[in-house]
């Protein structure tokens, strides 16, 4: 049986490698819709994908959060990205596969992945 002893080792390792995080307010917020519509459409792997990908790339300026139903259930899983410049991008019909591209292009390089946005899907 796996025990919490292993977690102590992880804690000690983390303590040594923790950087001081600069919370300068220049945060990007990724918000995943986690209501019934979102979950049924596959929001769980999308949320976990963002969490993993953001951690893997050490993107300290990105926070991943959740919200309820925003009213466009037919486009779920829906992900909204808020950037410090006040822009909001709404990605629709997200999948775990699309997450990597959004992270690389949008969150890292600041380029909106327009083919996944509601504007190009809802024609």
């Amino acid at each position: 049986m796996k025990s919490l002893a292993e977690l102590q080792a992880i804690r000690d390792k983390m303590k040594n490698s923790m950087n001081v995080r600069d919370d300068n307010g220049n945060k990007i917020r990724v918000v995943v819709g986690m209501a019934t519509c979102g979950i049924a459409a596959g929001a769980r792997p999308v949320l976990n994908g963002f969490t993993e990908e953001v951690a893997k790339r050490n993107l300290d300026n990105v926070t991943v959060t959740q919200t309820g139903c925003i009213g466009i259930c037919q486009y779920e899983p829906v992900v909204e990205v808020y950037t410090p410049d006040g822009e909001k991008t709404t990605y629709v019909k997200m999948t775990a596969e699309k997450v990597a591209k959004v992270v690389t292009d949008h969150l890292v390089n600041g380029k909106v992945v327009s083919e996944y946005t509601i504007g190009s899907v809802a024609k």
Partner: protein
Amino acid sequence: MQELSLNILDVAQNSIKAKATLITIKIHKNTMSKTLLISIEDNGCGMSQQQAEQVVDPFYTTRTTRKVGLGVPFFKMSAELTGGTFTIQSELKVGTKISALYYYEHIDMMPVGDMASTMLSLISVNPDIDFIYYFSVDENEFCMNTQEMKTVLEGLPVNSNEVLTFIKNFINENQAEIENSK
């Protein structure tokens, strides 16, 4: 919903909405009676008797973005399809407990599915809420408790990648061990 772990994730969202600080999820399998009992209990704002009766109605919802509320009805249906039962107990300012009993050999039984992913989704975006997850088969039980983990972590974030990876393996390995112990 293709698996019960998604229903659990969905119903737990209601607890988060109800401002719970502790959410306890239990899955108990009884191999004698061939039943599976799933419960989700929180210390959130609770509901009045009338409201608790209304939430099983798919056309009842407190939200304003759409006219239906399907989380609880889906969960109820998943249990009743197997010949099982569903109960909801709630008290204002105390909390809510939702339980579903399944007959798991019934043809309409859905798989429990990936509980590690469900717990990870909950913990990663709600680090301030405590989650306790019990999984048991007959008398063999395993428990994951974020309160215990936070004590070990001494202030380090429970939703950091290293810890989340640990939690995922912790649940998967221990749950498999319980499942295979006879």
